């Protein structure tokens, strides 16, 4: 919650709190107390109390109030006991009409993010995602950004059997990698210069399962925030594959995850 208010402050936006469940006096009181404790005061705070199935209500409310960003607390890893809770976050993430930020370890004190990993695989949404990511980084003052291009292994047509095929595959990978890097650089060049100031932007290509590799990578480099494309609803085939991608991330959150929904698509 404090995290939410801070964010709203950073972006100069309106904040809606949504509580799904029975409204009781006691609950309201603790909630308002908490609000009072907060050191930062966003412009406008609105508290909504709704009843019903959590996932459906939240999504409906998001639509109703034209929410830009939905914040959810999430569990790092789903297991049998917590599966229920986890599945709400998951369902919402999948269906939400807006961007979703999953917070793994929300904290009262602000821990400044240091390193942000952004997906940059070849997709229509990627450019918007990168732009949004850079804006986000600007607002939150994140100094280091890594763009990860996930390249599907199936793009390398050579199977490694012996020395010769290994050499071929390595060459082909190098070529694919150069293509990817030039593509990402092109995207970066289209982004206004002021967004790129004071940041170290690097890129890294990975050959591996899409959606999985980036999560594992974010964990390895100890990134604070992972920014992903949302599902692309335009093509059914893509969405099926992408669902699977997000699924990897959602089942085992490596860090806080921001899923950027492309508004123009809708």
């Amino acid at each position, binding site marked *: 919650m404090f995290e939410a208010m801070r964010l709203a402050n950073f972006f100069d936006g309106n904040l809606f709190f949504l509580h799904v469940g029975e409204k009781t006096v006691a609950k309201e009181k603790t909630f308002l107390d908490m609000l009072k404790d907060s050191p930062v005061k966003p412009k406008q705070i609105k508290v909504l109390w709704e009843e019903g199935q959590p996932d459906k209500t939240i999504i409906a409310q998001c639509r109703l109030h034209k929410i830009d960003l939905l914040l959810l607390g999430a569990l790092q890893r789903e297991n049998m006991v917590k599966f229920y809770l986890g599945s709400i976050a998951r369902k919402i993430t999948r269906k939400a009409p807006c961007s979703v930020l999953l917070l793994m370890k929300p904290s009262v004190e602000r821990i400044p993010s240091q390193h942000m990993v952004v997906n940059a695989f070849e997709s229509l949404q990627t450019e918007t995602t990168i732009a949004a990511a850079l804006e986000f980084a600007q607002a939150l003052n994140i100094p280091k950004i890594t763009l990860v291009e996930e390249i599907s292994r199936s793009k390398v047509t050579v199977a490694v059997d012996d020395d010769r095929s290994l050499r071929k595959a390595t060459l082909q990978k190098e070529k694919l990698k150069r293509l990817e890097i030039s593509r990402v650089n092109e995207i970066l060049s289209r982004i206004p210069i002021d967004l790129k100031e004071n940041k170290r932007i690097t890129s890294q*290509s*990975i050959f591996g399962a899409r959606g*999985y590799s980036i999560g594992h990578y974010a964990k390895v480099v100890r990134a604070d925030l992972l920014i992903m494309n949302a599902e692309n609803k335009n093509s059914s085939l893509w969405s099926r594959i992408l669902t699977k991608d997000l699924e990897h991330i959602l089942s085992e959150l490596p860090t806080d995850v921001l899923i950027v929904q492309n508004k123009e698509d809708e």
Partner: protein
Amino acid sequence: MNKPSAVKTFIGDLPKNLFAGFVVSLVALPLGLGLAIASEAPPISGVIAAVVGGMVAAILGGSQLTITGPGNGLVIVLLSAITTLGGGDLYQGYLFTLAAIVFSGALMFLFGVFRLGALSEFFPSSALQGMLAAIGIGILAKQIHVMLGITSVSGAPLKLLILVPYSIEQLYLNASLEILLPAGLGIVSLLILVFYSRLRSPFFHLVPAPMWVVLVAIGLTYYFDLVVKAPYPVAENLLISLPENVLNNLPFPDFSILTTGPFVSTVFSITLIASIESLLSIKAVDKLDPQKRRSNVNKDLRALGIGTALSGLVGGLNVVTVIARSSVNVNNGGSNRSSNFAHALFLLAFVLLFQNQIERIALPALAAILVFTGYKLAAPENLLRILTIGKEQAAIFGVTLIVTLTNGLITGIGAGILATFIIHVAINRSLFLFSRNWLKPNVLMYKEDESGNYYVSVKNFSSFLNFYKLKGKLDEIPESEHAIVDFSLCEFVDHTVMEGLNNYRRGFARKGGVFEIIGLDAHGTETQHPFAIRKSLPSNDFFKLGNNLTKRQISLQKLATILDWEYRSELTSDTKELERFDYFKTKIVNYQYNELISKDDQFHLFDLSYTEGAFIAKEDIKASFLLVELSYSIPEFILDRENFLGGLNEVTSYDDIDFSEFPDFSRRFFLGGEDPESIRTLFNQELTFFFESHQYYRVESIGNSLLIKRRNRLSSIQEVKSLLAFSNELMTILNSRKNA
């Protein structure tokens, strides 16, 4: 590589490969006959498998140095197939089994087509060891009776083992020449095999051990024929019988019981064992390749499948890749597939030309070869080695061994896999770790853009269940690069994986790359992983020697104190990238110990354990070496005593450089290297005189390091001292040359 030069190398290497093929065929003939007899198949069927397999695999195969033919692992499966499928009628059983072999060939071909070359990685390594040991015991239990000249006993392996004293008793009770001579021949044959590697006389080693056995057996019959002039006192059923005309009397498989249960299960067991044996052998032979090529296992499987099917059609046994014969091939200078082809041709020639002589070979002699093979498979040192890795590994080994012996191979390996999994679950106290993550991807690999290193991170758990995923990634890293495998996100790493990674480490070291494993340090302290701790630094921990130094070690220590050098007695697998030297091209370095290091880090004197050949042709050698690091670069060369044939005892691609001005030196020494001109400039009057006036040492230079060695054994303290003196003087000469 352009085409003409490839053809040129091929033709240039042909004589060498023909020779290697010839030596291999000397080993393959007795093994082929013996393995067939052990399976209760006609003796010729083993040779047919080798001939057909050798030709097909040489033409279609994906590996260069492997030799194909009938395999040890299959003896037990084939034996039970031949005895059970025919319902007691051995010949009918053999015909049914041939049909099963044809089908298993087709199945193996499909394995290759569907790229199941990773199949062998789904089996826990301790379970595989247990299965191999069971096969070894199975062979040994049956053949030990035949070796003593008694063919009447039969039954399950364990029952046969119990009957061994009975067979020995029979010898005592019926002591006569007819009984004792075959038994004596068997025992002498076994002694030849056991002591072959101990006797390092080059003359004795011109003929491989199994051929000596055959020669002794044949020689004995001629002794009776020509000297004693009496009939050979060995019963007819103890001699090999070949069909009158080998080429015209080929049996044809009987396909009439295709759909029955036993037939189908036979096909599956044969295919499984044949594939596993081949895959393990191919991997092992790759490690021996001086040119460090990587074999295409799937292509090999396809070739073996076709070979097996064809072999079955003409009455031969399964065709698999065999490790012992392949290592003989490597050690005799085989460099490409033509040696496999040559071995097949020589075998064919032997059978056609020496049919009479082959029929003089007594079974006990061949049985001795099989007993030796079985013992090597079941080798108790294997169990000891596994015990040092961990008690749970020994348990897996034991379960697999016992179940395989009592219930057959498929059940046995199944039990081994199950046991491994249960033990893993018990160790982690969590079934969840495995069930949740089994099918998920768990490996991330990328090339770090700044450093160019390959970074591999493994998550969750890494065991035989998902090792193929890690392997798939690792196989894509060129072995000349720097690879880092990080297990810090991985909760559990099993023995199969650690062993597999150790193989990668070796592979990278051979090709000049670096293979590092990180992130396992925390495992030991945090979670007390038995596998991870014990295997995390390969061999380092379980080779720990006691503190009791031997006399030689104390002397070395004293010597170190006098010289003001450092002395380290402990064993370590960090062997200073010795694989860089030509000498170790076809050898596997195990570990080093008793190291003396000079103050300036220039001289390293150490004892080294290394292996030559594999399986029954394997020789473990411990020898002392001196490694000298130079601060400057000299031409690369190999200098050694010339052998009686005017060449080098080991495989080399260099020609001997002779100096007309130093005839004595040229006559006594073999000198070879990449760049003859610069070597000629280096070896002037002073240097050649120096070598002439000292003892023979083998000196190899790889530019900025020298490797000096005296004999194929550990040096005594006196020898160590003279070696040091020799190298000191050599260095003085080289240094003065450098400064001049």
